[in-house]
């Protein structure tokens, strides 16, 4: 059992190492190694799932030092949460590998790509299996690295290179908080291991709950970075510069969900009733993120960007759920969302592939006829995302709305609006991209993609439908509480959202050639993402680059120039002065000699 767990963690690393060191030249072999390692990990994950026992294993990474510090462990914790998450990660991972075989087949740096994928699988599995926060932080950062590598796969494109940099740096800011949180948590509880945190929580020593709350918020900052919550959400849309399968894997299904996963870990380990302010903050941040992202999504033209904002929005949902102390709902949505969002991304990948890397939905159109199967799967994904009844998304969203309804009315209203907006923009996407007429040469020449691409699409679309049903969810979902369905306000709200959103989308975008809303002022704000990027650019420019320039200037001027230079100039000046005393003139010498005599006598005889 432990061996299998270690294998799941180690295989992708092995694969990445092998590819990098040995088989980079042999592209085919590289892809094969990576894909088969993904397959094996999936199978192993299923084996673990089938086994179903909670267990953990660890080895000491840094030994204990003193009494307070018990060392850092690299450990694997297998419980329901990690088992389910493992399935999501390896499942989506394998399908994305499979999809990539076709999607990337013309890329010259295929080996590097698959190496990156394997590295990502390794890091992500690490997060999932981590038994303590420091180990989670380690893999957290490694995930950031692999994301950096994969987003920047086409590093020669300046936008891709910049996007990868942005993603890494934004995540770093989140990690800054995460690390503080871990440190504080360590200080407060004396441990960072989840199991020990549970023990601590069960028998809490007297402690200052405010600081625990602050620690939680700091840890949440990590999630804000990784799960792209406001205000650190800016990297995710940009990350769409990476290859589409990467977006599906990392920026839709798994990595961005890691924040939610981590929060779920924390919330299931520590009893948080006493520090309500922290979860509330989290819930609000989630809610606001989801609303803003949904608004932004309504005016995007890039198919991947729309999906990216929808991801943001859905992540906000999940975070909100977790913040409402309903981790089950959040994680359940994570689980369902992973499938249908991966499906949507891979679907968009297929479309982009078919349209020769055209991503603007206004230049597509009429793809329904050209790629019927893709259209079908994409529609299923869209419906799931909208929360159409009987799809997976419906169930999970329902739980979140339910939770919001019970905890906070404003958040519930917000969630309902988001649901409406989701229907609206997804409807827009579907209508513009797949229906209507071909609006460009690229879409005109599009044709159905190959089987290797379709297999993942079909598999995912099946999962997008069934994963919400209790018989699947209870088996596979990381956390799942069965809630009996009832026609409450949540259901009606959801249904209303569906109808209203869909109706608006249909009204505006049926057979539209251009966006009829784009000339509205408010639309401009949405299109420009509330100018957050611009704001950040200014902050970076003034808060960092200008400060850096000023600091550098001061550093050189005052320390380098005035103090150091001053000292050396003073020394040189004194040297010159002394040199001038050495005038070569005996008069001068005699005078100075006499002066010295007077002083010397004075000091010796008359001073004491």
């Amino acid at each position, binding site marked *: 059992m432990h061996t299998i767990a270690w294998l799941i963690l180690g295989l992708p690393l092995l694969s990445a190492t092998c590819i990098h060191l040995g088989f980079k030249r042999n592209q085919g072999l590289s892809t094969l190694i990576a894909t088969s390692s993904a397959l094996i990990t999936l199978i192993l994950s299923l084996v673990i799932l089938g086994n179903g026992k909670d267990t953990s294993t660890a080895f000491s990474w840094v030994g204990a030092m003193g009494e307070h510090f018990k060392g850092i462990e690299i450990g694997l914790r297998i419980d329901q949460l990690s088992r389910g998450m493992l399935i999501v990660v390896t499942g989506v991972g394998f399908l994305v590998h499979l999809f990539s075989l076709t999607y990337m087949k013309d890329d010259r740096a295929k080996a590097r790509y698959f190496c990156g994928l394997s590295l990502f699988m390794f890091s992500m599995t690490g997060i999932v299996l981590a038994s303590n926060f420091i180990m989670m932080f380690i893999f957290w950062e490694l995930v950031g690295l692999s994301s950096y590598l994969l987003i920047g796969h086409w590093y020669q494109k300046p936008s891709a290179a910049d996007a990868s940099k942005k993603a890494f740096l934004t995540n770093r800011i989140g990690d800054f908080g995460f690390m503080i949180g871990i440190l504080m948590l360590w200080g407060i509880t004396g441990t960072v291991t989840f199991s020990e945190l549970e023990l601590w929580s069960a028998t809490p020593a007297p402690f200052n709950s405010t600081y625990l709350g602050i620690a939680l918020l700091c840890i949440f900052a990590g999630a804000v970075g990784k799960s792209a919550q406001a205000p650190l959400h800016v990297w995710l849309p940009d990350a769409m510069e990476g290859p589409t399968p990467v977006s599906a894997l990392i920026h839709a299904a798994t990595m961005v969900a890691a924040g939610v996963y981590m929060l779920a870990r924390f919330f299931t380990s520590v009893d948080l009733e006493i520090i309500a302010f922290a979860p509330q903050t989290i819930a609000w941040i989630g809610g606001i993120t989801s609303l803003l992202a949904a608004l932004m999504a309504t005016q995007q033209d890039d198919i991947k960007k729309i999906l990216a904002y929808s991801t943001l929005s859905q992540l906000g949902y999940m975070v909100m759920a977790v913040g409402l102390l309903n981790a089950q709902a959040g994680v359940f949505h994570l689980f369902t969302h992973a499938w249908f969002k991966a499906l949507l991304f891979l679907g968009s990948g297929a479309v982009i592939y078919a349209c020769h890397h055209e991503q603007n939905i206004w230049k597509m159109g009429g793809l329904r006829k050209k790629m019927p199967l893709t259209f079908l799967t994409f529609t299923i994904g869209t419906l799931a995302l909208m929360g159409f009844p009987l799809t997976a998304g419906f169930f999970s969203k329902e739980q979140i709305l339910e939770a919001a309804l019970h905890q906070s009315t404003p958040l519930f209203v917000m969630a309902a609006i988001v649901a409406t907006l989701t229907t609206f923009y997804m409807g827009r996407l579907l209508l513009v991209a797949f229906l209507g007429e071909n609006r460009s040469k690229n879409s005109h020449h599009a044709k159905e993609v190959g089987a290797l691409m379709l297999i993942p699409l079909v598999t995912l679309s099946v999962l997008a439908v069934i994963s919400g049903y209790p018989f699947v969810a209870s088996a596979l979902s990381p956390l799942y509480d069965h809630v009996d369905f009832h026609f409450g306000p949540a259901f009606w709200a959801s249904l209303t959202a569906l109808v209203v959103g869909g109706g608006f989308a249909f009204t505006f975008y049926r057979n539209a050639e251009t966006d009829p809303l784009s000339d509205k002022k408010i639309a401009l704000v949405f299109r420009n993402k509330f100018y957050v990027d611009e704001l950040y650019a200014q902050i970076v420019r003034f808060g960092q680059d200008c400060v850096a320039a000023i600091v550098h200037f001061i550093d050189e001027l005052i320390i380098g120039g005035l103090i150091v230079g001053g000292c050396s100039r003073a020394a040189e000046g004194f040297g010159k002065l002394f040199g001038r005393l050495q*005038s*070569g*003139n*005996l*008069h001068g010498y*005699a005078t100075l000699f*006499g002066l010295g005599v007077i002083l010397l006598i004075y000091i010796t005889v008359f001073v004491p």
Partner: protein
Amino acid sequence: MASLNDYLLVSGLLFAIGLAGVIIRSNIIVIFMCLELMLAAASLTLVAFSRFNVSSNGLPDYDGQVFVFFIITVAAAEVAVGLAIIVALYRARQTINVEDLTSMRG
């Protein structure tokens, strides 16, 4: 008879005058003379002390006067060598003015 302090004062003033000459004058030979004056002033102090610090037998302490003897000898030797150098300098530079001796400085 005058007191010891009178003699010490005279010798001190004489020494100071010599010092003044060394500082003010430009002619090396005169400067040299002033230096001799300083030595002589020091001799006066010595003799005065030797007369005052009577030795155990009541006579002046002749150690001091012996020292004066050495001083005079040294001064003579110094003058000889010094003047030789000055003459050589004069031959080379046609000057014995200290203001002209500033080829090395800084």
